[in-house]
Protein backbone atom coordinates (compact mmCIF):
# COMPACT_ATOMS: atom_id res chain seq x y z
CA UNK A 1 0.00 0.00 0.00
CA UNK A 2 1.51 3.38 -0.99
CA UNK A 3 2.53 5.59 1.87
CA UNK A 4 1.07 9.01 2.40
CA UNK A 5 2.71 11.88 0.64
CA UNK A 6 2.82 15.32 2.21
CA UNK A 7 0.16 17.84 1.21
CA UNK A 8 1.36 20.95 -0.56
CA UNK A 9 0.73 23.05 2.52
CA UNK A 10 3.25 21.00 4.48
CA UNK A 11 5.90 21.37 1.78
CA UNK A 12 5.31 25.11 1.92
CA UNK A 13 5.59 25.07 5.73
CA UNK A 14 8.85 23.12 5.57
CA UNK A 15 10.35 25.65 3.14
CA UNK A 16 9.13 28.55 5.27
CA UNK A 17 11.13 27.06 8.13
CA UNK A 18 14.23 27.14 5.94
CA UNK A 19 14.05 30.88 5.35
CA UNK A 20 15.97 33.13 7.70
CA UNK A 21 14.95 36.21 9.58
CA UNK A 22 15.77 39.22 7.41
CA UNK A 23 15.81 37.29 4.13
CA UNK A 24 14.61 38.73 0.84
CA UNK A 25 13.04 35.94 -1.18
CA UNK A 26 11.37 35.49 -4.56
CA UNK A 27 8.52 33.00 -4.75
CA UNK A 28 7.43 31.35 -7.98
CA UNK A 29 3.76 30.98 -8.78
CA UNK A 30 1.72 28.04 -7.46
CA UNK A 31 3.13 25.93 -4.63
CA UNK A 32 6.15 28.22 -4.05
CA UNK A 33 3.84 31.15 -3.52
CA UNK A 34 2.13 29.29 -0.66
CA UNK A 35 5.35 29.62 1.38
CA UNK A 36 4.41 33.18 2.27
CA UNK A 37 1.48 31.90 4.29
CA UNK A 38 3.68 29.99 6.73
CA UNK A 39 6.39 32.37 7.89
CA UNK A 40 6.52 31.94 11.66
CA UNK A 41 5.75 34.97 13.80
CA UNK A 42 8.88 36.82 14.84
CA UNK A 43 10.67 36.01 11.59
CA UNK A 44 10.67 38.79 9.02
CA UNK A 45 10.95 37.66 5.43
CA UNK A 46 10.42 40.15 2.62
CA UNK A 47 9.08 38.75 -0.62
CA UNK A 48 10.18 40.08 -3.99
CA UNK A 49 7.86 39.85 -6.98
CA UNK A 50 9.69 40.29 -10.27
CA UNK A 51 7.10 42.72 -11.57
CA UNK A 52 8.67 45.28 -9.28
CA UNK A 53 7.34 44.73 -5.77
CA UNK A 54 9.74 44.39 -2.84
CA UNK A 55 7.81 43.36 0.26
CA UNK A 56 4.73 41.61 -1.10
CA UNK A 57 2.09 41.30 1.61
CA UNK A 58 -0.95 39.05 1.95
CA UNK A 59 -3.90 39.10 -0.42
CA UNK A 60 -6.28 41.98 0.26
CA UNK A 61 -9.80 41.34 1.39
CA UNK A 62 -12.24 41.43 -1.46
CA UNK A 63 -13.24 44.98 -2.24
CA UNK A 64 -10.15 46.34 -0.47
CA UNK A 65 -7.70 45.80 -3.29
CA UNK A 66 -4.99 48.41 -3.75
CA UNK A 67 -5.27 49.80 -7.29
CA UNK A 68 -2.55 48.53 -9.64
CA UNK A 69 -0.81 46.37 -7.04
CA UNK A 70 -0.30 42.81 -8.24
CA UNK A 71 2.19 40.03 -7.69
CA UNK A 72 4.03 38.23 -10.49
CA UNK A 73 1.09 35.86 -10.86
CA UNK A 74 -1.17 38.82 -11.59
CA UNK A 75 -3.08 38.50 -8.32
CA UNK A 76 -3.96 41.49 -6.15
CA UNK A 77 -1.63 41.77 -3.17
CA UNK A 78 -0.83 44.20 -0.39
CA UNK A 79 2.51 45.71 0.52
CA UNK A 80 4.39 45.09 3.76
CA UNK A 81 5.42 48.12 5.81
CA UNK A 82 8.82 49.02 4.42
CA UNK A 83 8.01 47.64 0.99
CA UNK A 84 9.07 49.44 -2.16
CA UNK A 85 8.12 49.65 -5.82
CA UNK A 86 10.78 49.43 -8.52
CA UNK A 87 10.77 49.20 -12.30
CA UNK A 88 11.58 46.06 -14.25
CA UNK A 89 15.21 46.91 -14.87
CA UNK A 90 15.78 47.44 -11.15
CA UNK A 91 13.70 44.39 -10.25
CA UNK A 92 15.99 42.18 -12.29
CA UNK A 93 19.09 44.07 -11.20
CA UNK A 94 18.08 42.86 -7.74
CA UNK A 95 17.76 39.33 -9.11
CA UNK A 96 20.79 39.15 -11.38
CA UNK A 97 22.96 41.09 -8.96
CA UNK A 98 22.52 38.37 -6.35
CA UNK A 99 20.72 40.54 -3.85
CA UNK A 100 18.04 37.93 -3.07
CA UNK A 101 18.90 35.49 -0.31
CA UNK A 102 16.77 32.77 -1.81
CA UNK A 103 14.13 31.89 -4.36
CA UNK A 104 11.52 29.16 -4.14
CA UNK A 105 10.71 27.79 -7.57
CA UNK A 106 8.63 25.00 -9.00
CA UNK A 107 10.36 22.19 -10.86
CA UNK A 108 9.64 19.82 -13.71
CA UNK A 109 13.04 18.14 -13.40
CA UNK A 110 16.05 18.63 -11.17
CA UNK A 111 19.34 16.91 -12.05
CA UNK A 112 21.85 15.63 -9.54
CA UNK A 113 24.27 18.40 -10.52
CA UNK A 114 21.69 21.06 -9.65
CA UNK A 115 20.42 21.73 -13.16
CA UNK A 116 16.83 22.95 -13.13
CA UNK A 117 14.16 22.50 -15.82
CA UNK A 118 10.93 24.20 -14.89
CA UNK A 119 9.57 26.22 -17.79
CA UNK A 120 8.36 23.95 -20.55
CA UNK A 121 7.18 20.42 -21.16
CA UNK A 122 8.78 19.44 -24.45
CA UNK A 123 5.48 18.19 -25.84
CA UNK A 124 3.90 21.63 -25.48
CA UNK A 125 6.09 23.13 -28.19
CA UNK A 126 5.90 26.70 -26.91
CA UNK A 127 6.41 27.86 -23.35
CA UNK A 128 6.83 30.95 -21.22
CA UNK A 129 10.16 31.44 -19.46
CA UNK A 130 9.03 34.60 -17.64
CA UNK A 131 11.57 35.52 -14.97
CA UNK A 132 12.51 31.96 -14.08
CA UNK A 133 15.86 31.83 -15.88
CA UNK A 134 17.06 35.06 -14.26
CA UNK A 135 15.80 34.16 -10.83
CA UNK A 136 17.18 30.60 -10.90
CA UNK A 137 20.57 31.99 -11.88
CA UNK A 138 20.52 35.02 -9.63
CA UNK A 139 19.16 34.21 -6.17
CA UNK A 140 21.80 33.07 -3.70
CA UNK A 141 20.00 29.85 -2.78
CA UNK A 142 17.50 28.06 -5.00
CA UNK A 143 14.88 25.96 -3.28
CA UNK A 144 12.76 23.79 -5.54
CA UNK A 145 9.27 22.87 -4.38
CA UNK A 146 7.62 20.06 -6.30
CA UNK A 147 6.06 16.63 -6.24
CA UNK A 148 8.74 13.96 -6.07
CA UNK A 149 7.54 12.21 -9.24
CA UNK A 150 5.19 12.99 -12.12
CA UNK A 151 1.55 11.92 -12.04
CA UNK A 152 2.59 9.00 -14.21
CA UNK A 153 5.22 8.01 -11.67
CA UNK A 154 8.20 9.16 -13.69
CA UNK A 155 11.31 10.50 -12.03
CA UNK A 156 11.51 14.27 -11.64
CA UNK A 157 14.82 14.08 -9.78
CA UNK A 158 17.05 12.75 -12.54
CA UNK A 159 20.64 12.09 -13.48
CA UNK A 160 20.40 14.55 -16.31
CA UNK A 161 17.47 16.73 -17.31
CA UNK A 162 15.78 15.77 -20.57
CA UNK A 163 13.58 18.86 -20.55
CA UNK A 164 14.91 22.25 -21.75
CA UNK A 165 16.86 23.84 -18.93
CA UNK A 166 16.05 26.97 -16.96
CA UNK A 167 19.53 27.25 -15.44
CA UNK A 168 22.52 25.03 -14.84
CA UNK A 169 23.94 23.95 -11.45
CA UNK A 170 21.83 26.26 -9.36
CA UNK A 171 19.58 24.16 -7.11
CA UNK A 172 20.48 24.18 -3.43
CA UNK A 173 17.72 22.02 -1.93
CA UNK A 174 14.74 20.09 -3.26
CA UNK A 175 11.61 20.00 -1.11
CA UNK A 176 9.14 17.36 -2.29
CA UNK A 177 6.09 15.60 -0.96
CA UNK A 178 8.31 12.81 0.34
CA UNK A 179 11.74 14.23 1.07
CA UNK A 180 14.20 17.08 1.56
CA UNK A 181 17.28 16.57 -0.61
CA UNK A 182 20.35 18.78 -0.76
CA UNK A 183 22.41 19.17 -3.89
CA UNK A 184 26.09 18.99 -3.01
CA UNK A 185 29.29 18.78 -5.05
CA UNK A 186 29.33 15.09 -4.05
CA UNK A 187 25.80 14.49 -5.31
CA UNK A 188 22.37 14.39 -3.74
CA UNK A 189 22.09 14.04 0.02
CA UNK A 190 18.85 12.83 1.57
CA UNK A 191 18.35 15.00 4.63
CA UNK A 192 14.75 14.32 5.60
CA UNK A 193 11.84 12.11 4.59
CA UNK A 194 8.10 12.27 5.13
CA UNK A 195 6.78 10.40 8.18
CA UNK A 196 7.05 6.66 7.66
CA UNK A 197 9.27 6.82 4.58
CA UNK A 198 12.58 4.99 4.61
CA UNK A 199 15.60 6.15 2.63
CA UNK A 200 15.17 3.10 0.39
CA UNK A 201 11.61 4.11 -0.41
CA UNK A 202 12.71 7.64 -1.32
CA UNK A 203 15.56 6.24 -3.39
CA UNK A 204 13.11 4.11 -5.34
CA UNK A 205 11.42 7.31 -6.56
CA UNK A 206 14.70 9.05 -7.37
CA UNK A 207 16.87 8.30 -10.38
CA UNK A 208 20.31 9.40 -9.10
CA UNK A 209 21.87 7.68 -6.12
CA UNK A 210 21.08 9.39 -2.83
CA UNK A 211 23.58 9.60 -0.04
CA UNK A 212 21.79 9.38 3.27
CA UNK A 213 22.81 12.23 5.54
CA UNK A 214 24.35 11.26 8.89
CA UNK A 215 21.66 13.50 10.38
CA UNK A 216 18.84 11.94 8.35
CA UNK A 217 15.49 12.43 10.06
CA UNK A 218 11.78 12.70 9.62
CA UNK A 219 10.63 16.03 8.17
CA UNK A 220 9.89 18.33 11.05
CA UNK A 221 8.13 21.66 11.05
Amino acid at each position, binding site marked *: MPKDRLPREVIAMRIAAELKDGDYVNLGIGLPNMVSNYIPPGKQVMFHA*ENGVVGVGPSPEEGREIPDLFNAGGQPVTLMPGGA*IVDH*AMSFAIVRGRHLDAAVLGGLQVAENGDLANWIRPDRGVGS*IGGAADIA*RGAKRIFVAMEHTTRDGEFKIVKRCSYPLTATRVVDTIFTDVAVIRVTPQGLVLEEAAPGWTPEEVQALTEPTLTVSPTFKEIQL
Partner: protein
Amino acid sequence: MARAILCASAAEAVAGIPDGSVIMVGGFAARDAPSLLVGALVDQGARDLTLICNGPTGRPGMKDTSMLVHNRQVRKVVCSFPVPSTTSGPMTDFEAQYRAGEIQLELAPQGTLAERIRAGGAGIGGFYTPTGVGTPFGEGKEQRTIDGVDYVLEYPLVADYALIRAQTADSMGNLLYRMSSRNFNPIMAMAAKTTIVEVAEVVAAGSLNPEHIVTPGLFVHRIVVRPE
Protein backbone atom coordinates in the same frame (compact mmCIF):
# COMPACT_ATOMS: atom_id res chain seq x y z
CA MET B 1 7.12 74.26 -25.74
CA ALA B 2 7.68 70.91 -24.15
CA ARG B 3 8.93 67.96 -26.15
CA ALA B 4 5.76 66.16 -25.06
CA ILE B 5 2.55 67.01 -26.88
CA LEU B 6 -0.88 66.56 -25.34
CA CYS B 7 -3.13 64.70 -27.80
CA ALA B 8 -6.87 65.15 -27.88
CA SER B 9 -7.55 61.47 -28.50
CA ALA B 10 -5.90 58.08 -28.55
CA ALA B 11 -6.42 58.01 -32.32
CA GLU B 12 -4.38 61.19 -32.59
CA ALA B 13 -1.76 59.73 -30.26
CA VAL B 14 -1.15 56.68 -32.48
CA ALA B 15 -1.61 58.50 -35.79
CA GLY B 16 1.13 57.92 -38.31
CA ILE B 17 2.46 54.63 -36.98
CA PRO B 18 3.43 52.92 -40.23
CA ASP B 19 3.22 49.27 -41.20
CA GLY B 20 6.36 47.38 -40.27
CA SER B 21 7.06 49.43 -37.14
CA VAL B 22 8.75 48.04 -34.05
CA ILE B 23 6.43 48.70 -31.11
CA MET B 24 7.10 48.30 -27.41
CA VAL B 25 4.04 47.97 -25.22
CA GLY B 26 4.29 48.38 -21.45
CA GLY B 27 2.45 46.48 -18.77
CA PHE B 28 3.14 43.21 -17.03
CA ALA B 29 -0.17 41.40 -17.04
CA ALA B 30 -3.28 42.14 -19.07
CA ARG B 31 -4.73 44.28 -16.30
CA ASP B 32 -2.15 47.04 -16.44
CA ALA B 33 -1.76 47.23 -20.20
CA PRO B 34 -2.04 50.61 -21.96
CA SER B 35 -5.37 49.41 -23.27
CA LEU B 36 -6.53 52.75 -24.62
CA LEU B 37 -3.49 53.07 -26.88
CA VAL B 38 -3.48 49.42 -27.89
CA GLY B 39 -7.17 49.67 -28.79
CA ALA B 40 -6.44 52.77 -30.84
CA LEU B 41 -3.65 50.95 -32.66
CA VAL B 42 -6.08 48.15 -33.45
CA ASP B 43 -8.42 50.73 -34.95
CA GLN B 44 -5.57 52.47 -36.74
CA GLY B 45 -4.67 49.17 -38.32
CA ALA B 46 -0.87 49.29 -38.81
CA ARG B 47 0.28 45.81 -39.84
CA ASP B 48 3.43 43.73 -40.00
CA LEU B 49 4.44 45.00 -36.58
CA THR B 50 7.24 43.69 -34.39
CA LEU B 51 5.85 43.69 -30.88
CA ILE B 52 8.12 43.87 -27.83
CA CYS B 53 6.25 43.26 -24.60
CA ASN B 54 6.13 40.94 -21.62
CA GLY B 55 3.65 38.70 -23.36
CA PRO B 56 0.49 38.72 -25.52
CA THR B 57 -1.20 36.27 -23.19
CA GLY B 58 -4.61 37.87 -22.90
CA ARG B 59 -7.55 35.63 -23.63
CA PRO B 60 -9.94 36.88 -26.32
CA GLY B 61 -11.70 40.00 -25.08
CA MET B 62 -8.84 41.16 -22.85
CA LYS B 63 -7.54 44.60 -23.68
CA ASP B 64 -3.82 43.92 -23.93
CA THR B 65 -1.39 43.23 -26.75
CA SER B 66 -3.32 40.08 -27.62
CA MET B 67 -5.78 42.41 -29.39
CA LEU B 68 -3.07 43.28 -31.91
CA VAL B 69 -2.30 39.61 -32.44
CA HIS B 70 -5.98 38.77 -32.75
CA ASN B 71 -6.32 41.45 -35.41
CA ARG B 72 -3.32 39.93 -37.26
CA GLN B 73 -1.26 43.11 -37.07
CA VAL B 74 1.80 41.40 -35.65
CA ARG B 75 4.57 39.66 -37.60
CA LYS B 76 6.90 38.93 -34.70
CA VAL B 77 6.79 39.03 -30.92
CA VAL B 78 9.79 39.52 -28.64
CA CYS B 79 8.69 38.61 -25.12
CA SER B 80 9.19 36.43 -22.05
CA PHE B 81 5.64 35.18 -21.64
CA PRO B 82 4.14 34.22 -25.01
CA VAL B 83 1.56 31.76 -23.67
CA PRO B 84 -0.38 31.37 -20.42
CA SER B 85 1.13 29.03 -17.82
CA THR B 86 -1.73 26.59 -18.05
CA THR B 87 -3.18 24.95 -21.11
CA SER B 88 -6.67 25.02 -19.66
CA GLY B 89 -9.03 27.46 -21.33
CA PRO B 90 -9.21 28.31 -25.02
CA MET B 91 -5.97 28.64 -26.95
CA THR B 92 -4.77 32.23 -27.26
CA ASP B 93 -4.54 33.90 -30.65
CA PHE B 94 -0.79 34.04 -30.32
CA GLU B 95 -0.48 30.32 -29.72
CA ALA B 96 -2.81 29.47 -32.58
CA GLN B 97 -0.94 31.72 -35.01
CA TYR B 98 2.42 30.46 -33.72
CA ARG B 99 1.43 26.84 -34.18
CA ALA B 100 0.24 27.69 -37.69
CA GLY B 101 3.59 29.31 -38.50
CA GLU B 102 1.94 32.68 -38.99
CA ILE B 103 3.82 34.64 -36.35
CA GLN B 104 7.44 34.63 -35.22
CA LEU B 105 8.62 34.46 -31.63
CA GLU B 106 11.85 35.61 -30.01
CA LEU B 107 11.62 34.28 -26.49
CA ALA B 108 13.75 36.12 -23.92
CA PRO B 109 14.16 35.64 -20.19
CA GLN B 110 12.26 38.46 -18.53
CA GLY B 111 15.29 40.02 -16.87
CA THR B 112 17.24 39.85 -20.11
CA LEU B 113 14.29 41.40 -21.92
CA ALA B 114 14.18 44.24 -19.40
CA GLU B 115 17.94 44.78 -19.53
CA ARG B 116 17.97 44.73 -23.34
CA ILE B 117 15.29 47.43 -23.37
CA ARG B 118 17.20 49.49 -20.83
CA ALA B 119 20.39 49.04 -22.87
CA GLY B 120 18.54 50.30 -25.93
CA GLY B 121 17.49 53.39 -24.05
CA ALA B 122 20.87 53.94 -22.41
CA GLY B 123 22.99 53.70 -25.56
CA ILE B 124 24.67 50.45 -24.53
CA GLY B 125 25.70 48.34 -27.53
CA GLY B 126 25.51 44.98 -25.77
CA PHE B 127 26.02 43.38 -22.39
CA TYR B 128 27.03 40.13 -20.79
CA THR B 129 24.45 38.41 -18.60
CA PRO B 130 24.75 35.15 -16.67
CA THR B 131 21.12 34.35 -17.41
CA GLY B 132 20.62 31.64 -19.98
CA VAL B 133 24.10 30.13 -20.02
CA GLY B 134 23.83 26.42 -20.80
CA THR B 135 20.10 26.67 -21.62
CA PRO B 136 18.13 27.26 -24.81
CA PHE B 137 18.36 31.00 -24.03
CA GLY B 138 22.12 30.94 -24.46
CA GLU B 139 22.17 28.84 -27.61
CA GLY B 140 23.85 30.45 -30.57
CA LYS B 141 24.95 33.39 -28.47
CA GLU B 142 28.49 34.49 -27.87
CA GLN B 143 29.67 33.20 -24.51
CA ARG B 144 32.46 34.56 -22.35
CA THR B 145 33.91 33.84 -18.94
CA ILE B 146 34.64 36.97 -16.93
CA ASP B 147 36.17 36.69 -13.46
CA GLY B 148 35.22 33.01 -13.35
CA VAL B 149 31.54 33.49 -14.20
CA ASP B 150 30.01 32.44 -17.53
CA TYR B 151 27.97 35.00 -19.44
CA VAL B 152 26.23 35.31 -22.78
CA LEU B 153 26.24 38.44 -24.90
CA GLU B 154 22.87 40.10 -25.39
CA TYR B 155 22.06 43.04 -27.64
CA PRO B 156 19.87 46.09 -27.00
CA LEU B 157 16.26 46.44 -28.07
CA VAL B 158 14.97 49.70 -29.47
CA ALA B 159 11.63 50.60 -30.95
CA ASP B 160 10.05 53.07 -33.28
CA TYR B 161 7.22 53.60 -30.82
CA ALA B 162 6.57 52.76 -27.19
CA LEU B 163 2.97 52.62 -25.99
CA ILE B 164 3.02 52.95 -22.23
CA ARG B 165 0.72 53.68 -19.36
CA ALA B 166 1.25 55.93 -16.36
CA GLN B 167 -0.88 57.42 -13.65
CA THR B 168 0.07 61.09 -13.83
CA ALA B 169 1.88 63.26 -16.35
CA ASP B 170 2.78 66.88 -16.00
CA SER B 171 2.72 69.13 -19.03
CA MET B 172 6.45 68.55 -19.56
CA GLY B 173 5.81 64.80 -19.86
CA ASN B 174 7.25 63.82 -16.49
CA LEU B 175 5.55 60.61 -15.37
CA LEU B 176 4.46 58.92 -12.15
CA TYR B 177 3.23 55.33 -12.11
CA ARG B 178 0.90 53.68 -9.66
CA MET B 179 2.29 50.72 -7.72
CA SER B 180 3.28 47.68 -9.78
CA SER B 181 1.93 49.16 -13.00
CA ARG B 182 5.36 50.79 -13.28
CA ASN B 183 7.02 47.57 -14.54
CA PHE B 184 8.40 47.89 -18.11
CA ASN B 185 6.97 51.35 -18.79
CA PRO B 186 9.91 53.51 -17.65
CA ILE B 187 12.53 51.56 -19.61
CA MET B 188 10.38 51.36 -22.74
CA ALA B 189 9.93 55.12 -22.54
CA MET B 190 13.73 55.39 -22.87
CA ALA B 191 14.11 52.96 -25.74
CA ALA B 192 11.71 54.25 -28.39
CA LYS B 193 12.11 57.02 -30.94
CA THR B 194 8.56 58.11 -30.11
CA THR B 195 7.07 57.40 -26.70
CA ILE B 196 3.31 57.65 -26.35
CA VAL B 197 1.76 57.52 -22.90
CA GLU B 198 -1.79 57.18 -21.67
CA VAL B 199 -2.38 58.65 -18.24
CA ALA B 200 -5.19 59.10 -15.78
CA GLU B 201 -4.43 62.80 -15.38
CA VAL B 202 -2.26 65.65 -16.58
CA VAL B 203 -1.12 68.30 -14.13
CA ALA B 204 0.77 71.55 -14.56
CA ALA B 205 4.54 71.53 -14.83
CA GLY B 206 5.98 72.21 -11.41
CA SER B 207 3.20 70.51 -9.47
CA LEU B 208 5.05 67.19 -9.13
CA ASN B 209 7.84 66.76 -6.63
CA PRO B 210 10.93 66.51 -8.85
CA GLU B 211 12.39 63.85 -6.54
CA HIS B 212 9.39 61.58 -7.13
CA ILE B 213 9.41 61.64 -10.91
CA VAL B 214 10.15 58.21 -12.34
CA THR B 215 10.29 59.04 -16.05
CA PRO B 216 11.71 62.47 -16.91
CA GLY B 217 9.72 64.25 -19.57
CA LEU B 218 12.54 64.24 -22.08
CA PHE B 219 11.62 60.63 -22.87
CA VAL B 220 7.98 61.41 -23.62
CA HIS B 221 6.59 62.63 -26.95
CA ARG B 222 2.81 62.24 -26.87
CA ILE B 223 0.35 62.16 -23.99
CA VAL B 224 -3.29 61.19 -24.01
CA VAL B 225 -5.66 61.16 -21.04
CA ARG B 226 -7.55 57.96 -20.37
CA PRO B 227 -11.27 58.65 -20.01
CA GLU B 228 -12.36 56.92 -16.77
